[in-house]
């Protein structure tokens, strides 16, 4: 190893000195510590609390276990989560009854909570009851997997647990692997429950009662969280422990500072750098940059289908043909991601029933003008295009190009930059005519996308489309067990979507994970955060 002491080594030595003093047997080095920096912040230890941030989700994945978790697969050479492989986490095994109405879980015998008490089916029941009963975030999520009522959860014996479904639902099991249905130490939690807070929400927000891979050491909301490894935990793939002995999750609001930290080696991994910084660091070649298109997220340009002039499909088509997709993609994201335009569909039919798929659309001003004329606006019109301040790094250059290009077909656009809370309020109240926003689906299946983002009078239906046929096909597809029929439904939906053009899917931005070159195991997860348990150091 030699006697070269870098700054990191000195830091490590200092840490070592401290730990040897504090906990004699457990010396930890810098190499065994993972330091993750982020622009956001952890605000609660229970991911179910309304207002939880994504960073809080990531922490909860390490501090709590779920019954099951997603496997991973390789997509274009990069590891991503796999919705179709579900492996046990607290469950040793699970079985689905032939009629698809009962899922039985066999719990691990060796699973213990962090206070040493064993994980029992009673705890699982209490935790899932809480997820569907209490006023928390889990409720709306589990609903999408037909999990709505405490009577669906049954304790068979201390290590066997059964879930009953009203109808076979392919999203029931995946839902139990999402962030919210954490398994809580019910005895501990109940001890802190009160009359008006029977599910101990107030206590669990500041404390953990889980069986997860990491134990919370310090939690300073908005600043940092330090976690230490739960050595008894063995729920990683292959019954392994987590690699890092210590995790430091730290908020560093300035993106340039985060880039400096990771480049200097003081931070190990960061996923929210500016696209330009990620590109520069990749070019320097000192660090590993794993850039995964977020295949469960989409950025849209949305038009309010209930508001003139965007209530006319031809106007929406005209806008779609008047956008300089390639230039926008380059200017906003430095082409980091997957562009959803510029495809060719043979005989005009969607080639697949997956969502999203590349749209057969490109910049064609003549076509756009023709559509605009057909809609009765030969001279164009004026409108406002909005985006939120938090997205300005990507939305600003994009909006400028959009404005310039639409001016060529006579549509005059005023660009409006809104603070994030204002933007979400106006979207929910359906007051914005024309804007850009993104969506993300944890469980990305075609019917889920269409049901959540193209139906109903609710916030996520950005385009406010209300099409009875589309809604009916999407609802039917939800419980379609036959794969071929499901694919056919998907194609129908994709064709309708392209024809109606309620909103324009632009791209799937990349998640640029920039990390030290000796880190391995990084996997793009459905929650778009780092699952710290995946990582190890070579």
């Amino acid at each position, binding site marked *: 190893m030699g006697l070269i002491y870098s*700054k990191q080594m000195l*830091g490590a030595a*200092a*840490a070592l000195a*401290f730990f040897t003093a*504090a906990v004699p047997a457990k010396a930890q080095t810098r190499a065994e510590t993972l*330091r993750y*920096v982020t622009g956001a*912040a952890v*605000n*609660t230890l229970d991911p179910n*609390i*309304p*207002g*939880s941030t994504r960073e809080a989700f990531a922490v909860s994945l390490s501090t709590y276990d779920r019954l099951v978790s997603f496997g991973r697969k390789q997509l274009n050479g990069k590891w991503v989560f796999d919705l179709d492989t579900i492996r046990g986490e607290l469950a040793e095994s699970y079985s689905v009854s032939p009629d698809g109405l009962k899922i039985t879980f066999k719990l691990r015998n060796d699973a213990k909570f962090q206070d040493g008490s064993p994980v029992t089916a009673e705890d699982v029941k209490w935790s899932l009851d809480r997820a569907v009963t209490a*006023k928390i*975030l889990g*409720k*709306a*999520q589990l*609903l*999408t997997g037909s999990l709505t009522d405490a009577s669906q959860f049954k304790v068979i014996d201390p290590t066997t647990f059964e879930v009953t479904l009203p109808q076979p639902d392919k999203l029931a099991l995946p839902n139990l692997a999402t962030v919210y249905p954490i398994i809580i130490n019910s005895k501990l939690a109940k001890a802190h429950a009160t009359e008006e807070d029977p599910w101990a929400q107030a206590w669990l*927000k*500041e404390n953990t009662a889980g069986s997860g891979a990491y134990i919370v050491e310090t939690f*300073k*909301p*908005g*600043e*940092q969280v330090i976690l230490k490894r739960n050595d008894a935990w063995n729920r990683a793939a292959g019954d392994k422990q987590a690699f890092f002995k210590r995790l*430091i999750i*730290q*908020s*560093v*609001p*300035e993106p*340039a*500072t985060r880039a*400096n*930290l990771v*480049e*200097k080696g*003081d*931070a190990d991994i960061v996923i929210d750098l500016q696209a330009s910084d990620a590109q520069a660091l990749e070019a320097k070649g000192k660090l590993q940059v794993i850039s995964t298109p977020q295949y469960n997220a989409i950025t849209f340009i949305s038009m309010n289908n209930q508001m003139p002039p965007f209530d006319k499909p031809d106007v929406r088509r005209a806008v779609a043909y008047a956008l300089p997709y390639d230039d926008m993609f380059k200017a906003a994201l430095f082409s980091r991601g997957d562009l959803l335009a510029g495809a060719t569909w043979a005989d005009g039919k969607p080639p697949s029933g997956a969502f999203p798929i590349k749209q057969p659309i490109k910049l064609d001003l003549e076509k756009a003008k023709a559509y605009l004329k057909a809609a009765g606006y030969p001279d164009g019109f004026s409108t406002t295009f909005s985006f939120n*301040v*938090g997205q300005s790094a990507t939305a600003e250059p994009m909006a400028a190009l959009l404005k310039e290009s639409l001016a060529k077909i006579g549509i005059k656009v005023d660009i409006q930059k809104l*603070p*994030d*809370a*204002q933007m*979400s*309020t*106006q979207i*929910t109240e359906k007051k914005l005519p024309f804007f850009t926003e993104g969506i*993300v*689906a*944890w469980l990305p299946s075609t019917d889920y996308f269409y049901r*959540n983002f193209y139906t109903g009078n*609710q*916030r996520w239906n950005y385009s406010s489309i209300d099409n009875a046929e589309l809604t009916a096909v999407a609802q039917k597809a939800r419980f379609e067990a036959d794969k071929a029929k499901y694919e056919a439904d998907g194609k129908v939906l994709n064709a309708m979507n392209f024809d109606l053009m309620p909103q324009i899917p632009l791209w799937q931005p990349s998640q640029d994970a920039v990390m030290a070159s000796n880190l391995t195991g990084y996997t793009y997860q459905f929650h778009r955060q780092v699952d710290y348990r995946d990582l190890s150091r070579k």
Partner: protein
Amino acid sequence: MTTLGATAIRAARRFASSLPALFGVLIFTFLLMRVLPGDPAVFFASGPNSGKEEIETIRKQMGLDKPVPQQLFLYLYDVGRGNLGRSLMTGQNVTKDLRERLPASLELTFSALLIALVLAIPLGVLAALKPGSLVDHGVRLFCALGVCVPTFVSGLLLIYIFYYLFGVSPDPTGRVDIFTTLPPAHTGFLLIDFALAGDFDGWWAAFKQLILPACTMALFVIAPLARITRASMLASLGSDFVRTARSVGLSWWRIIVTYALRNAILPVITIAGIVFSTMLGANVLVEKVFSWPGVASYALDALLSSDYAPVQGFVLLMASVFVIVNLVVDVLYGIADPRISIG
């Protein structure tokens, strides 16, 4: 003894007379936040599946389902009991958040002001002694540079040079290196707490973290302080008593420091007071660049997400600090110039 007592009474009276203003600030901020178009409930109900129900839950939690006059009444009642409400952003009580973050901001601002004063007063005096000379122009250039470079630029520049290029500064992430154990919190000022605990390695670590952001902020405020010192020194140096002092052959040091500077210091104190209050609230860029866990960046984040309670709490805190700083300035006036009485 009597003067001290009189000063205290006058200060107390002065403080009491500022209470209506504080109350006004309280109500004004409350109403302002409600008038802003963002709805915090919608913003925070932003999980991938949050619908109307979540929005309603949050609204109820924040008390937004009640009519505004009732909300105001409840808020005043809470503030009266020392409860500033709960922040959705951090999930903590605003009182607790502010109590943890205010020392960080104060420590940074005090250090910055100290650095600024230590540099600005001699610079101003030097410039005033030789007006129009090379020194005067040099000071002017330095001041102009300090003011015209925005703090986030100078901050990033300092980080680039001292952290990235030379590696002499620790990483710019907060008040103390992440591997350092914190001293028991007595004052919340890390430099003082470390010194009290006798942990000088810790003190050094905290000092190294503090010096860059403090210099960044100081650079920005040296200009007004130095310019005011210069102007006021010029007036003072040209006055009769300095001429008299010179004519009776007093030493150079006594003329400049005891007579001229002491008389010139009043406007500098005023400006220093204003600069201090402004820095405390407006150093958000420095706090962001250096990940400093202070009150200004806290308030900005809250404002962006329309999180009412922290913004209201912050404005109230700033108003109170302003009142206190003005009070201190008045008392300092009395010390600098005994002829002045406040009241």
